[in-house]
């Protein structure tokens, strides 16, 4: 199922004007920010398809940069994100991508910091209603939606790695919702992406961080935090 629950249909709460081109773009940017682990110094953002054709009118550029600043979809600073990024030392450039794409709303991000010592590439697609899929990270073809707390683990490809990860999760009683794995070559590097139910305990990240052959570990969580409004209780059954 591409759309997982009721709030992927009713929601997100967001700043206009477009769920796919504004809210979805913000989520793609925010996923990249979480993967990168901090605010990058430089971001090259490549828009494809409908994103490339209409990004200025929809504020896609502002929204995706807002995401890089870790703003949620309803953050009122999104309209000013380009200016805020400039003031906070994030240099952003936009390009129009060419070539075949899997989806009309595709964005590829190339983030860097420390003069290029830390680098990340990521591709996201915006599939409608503010929902996104991340389909590539550092040239690994993986899949995640950001609606679940997600572990993104890069590691050497050798026997027992996935068992170690799943054992660590199971020892904390954590259930796996979805999982995707890709590798560049046999005995080369691989990436394992685990979307989980509930929260990621810090001990899980610590335990997997000690794993043999670990290259990197990141967590992504784009679930919408409680918005400010009056609380209401579920009425009793009639």
């Amino acid at each position, binding site marked *: 199922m591409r759309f997982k629950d*009721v709030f992927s249909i009713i929601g997100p*709460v967001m700043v206009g004007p477009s769920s796919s081109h504004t809210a979805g773009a913000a989520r793609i940017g925010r996923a990249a920010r979480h993967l990168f682990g901090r605010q990058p110094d430089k971001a090259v953002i490549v828009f494809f398809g409908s994103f490339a054709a*209409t990004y200025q009118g929809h504020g896609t550029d502002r929204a995706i940069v807002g995401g890089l600043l870790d703003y949620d979809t309803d953050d009122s600073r999104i309209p000013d994100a380009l200016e805020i990024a400039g003031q906070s030392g994030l240099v952003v450039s936009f390009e129009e991508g060419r070539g075949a794409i899997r989806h009309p709303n595709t964005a590829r991000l190339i983030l860097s910091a420390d003069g290029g010592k830390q680098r990340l590439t990521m591709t996201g697609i915006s599939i409608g209603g503010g929902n996104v899929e991340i389909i590539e990270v550092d040239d690994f073809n993986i899949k995640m939606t950001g609606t679940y707390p997600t572990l993104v683990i890069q590691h050497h490809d050798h026997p027992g790695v996935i068992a170690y990860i799943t054992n660590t999760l199971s020892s904390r009683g954590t259930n796996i919702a979805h999982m995707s794995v890709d590798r560049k070559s046999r005995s080369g590097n691989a990436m394992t992406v685990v979307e989980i139910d509930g929260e990621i305990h810090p001990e899980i990240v610590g335990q997997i961080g000690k794993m043999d052959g670990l290259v990197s570990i990141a967590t992504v969580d784009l679930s919408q935090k409680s918005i400010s409004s009056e609380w209401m209780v579920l009425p009793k059954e009639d």
Partner: protein
Amino acid sequence: MNFKTLDELASLCAERSLSIGRLMVEEQSLESGRSPEAEFSTMAQYYEVMKEAVERGLTENTTSPSGLTGMDAQRVVNYGTQQEMNLGGAAGEVMAYALAVSEVNASMGRIVATPTAGSCGVIPGVFVSSQKRFGWSDEHMVYGLFAAGAIGYVIANNSFISGAEGGCQAEIGSAIGMAAGALVELRGGTPAQAVHAVGLALKNTLGLICDPVGGLVEVPCIVRNGFGAVTALAAADMALAGVRSVIPSDEVIQVMMEVGSSMPEKHRETAKGGLAQTPTGRKIMQDL
């Protein structure tokens, strides 16, 4: 979720003697692992955002950054106070509320995507005005939103809800189907009647292209929200009267998928065709 089609959804409701809204609260809770109370609370908060958006659209300056649109909801309200509307007061108010929310969206205000931002006016327009008209409680409305969400969940997973994939039929069309089905339930109709309303509504928007002028969610998006909300009332009334969708609603959803998939790229939110490429549309794009 324990259903993939509207037919399965209606059967599940019958089996468990639940409305679509109440069933969806339970299904959502199973999916998320959070309590039904927590899920209900989140939706209740979303409904508050919808009400705020209606209010803002009716009272504040909604001129968009491009200057192309804004204040149309207030024009309709003013006209309605001076003359008898052709639609009648109730439908006229639904239309004005839908325009209001859509104008708030275009002016980069806060809205709830239902199912998208481009179609964010239809459901609040129908819900907020009908709540006032029929004196319904907020609780009743929140269950209605779960019903709308259940219908949208089926449409989204069997077809699409983005203009870039399937044209405007996927956005405004889906929103009308969701609003119509939910309104049937809010008025006391059965899940089966609600499902018929979805099919009746979707048939009326099949083939609608996404051709936003200048690539902005303004022209024709905003007025289509107004029209869409009125159409939802019509579909709900037909279904409540016993009118059936002869082609089952799940099959109509498949047709939306077929039509959207064969729609040329220029008519799928690229601003490369349709109204966007009329002489006036091109001039507006140049002047932006």
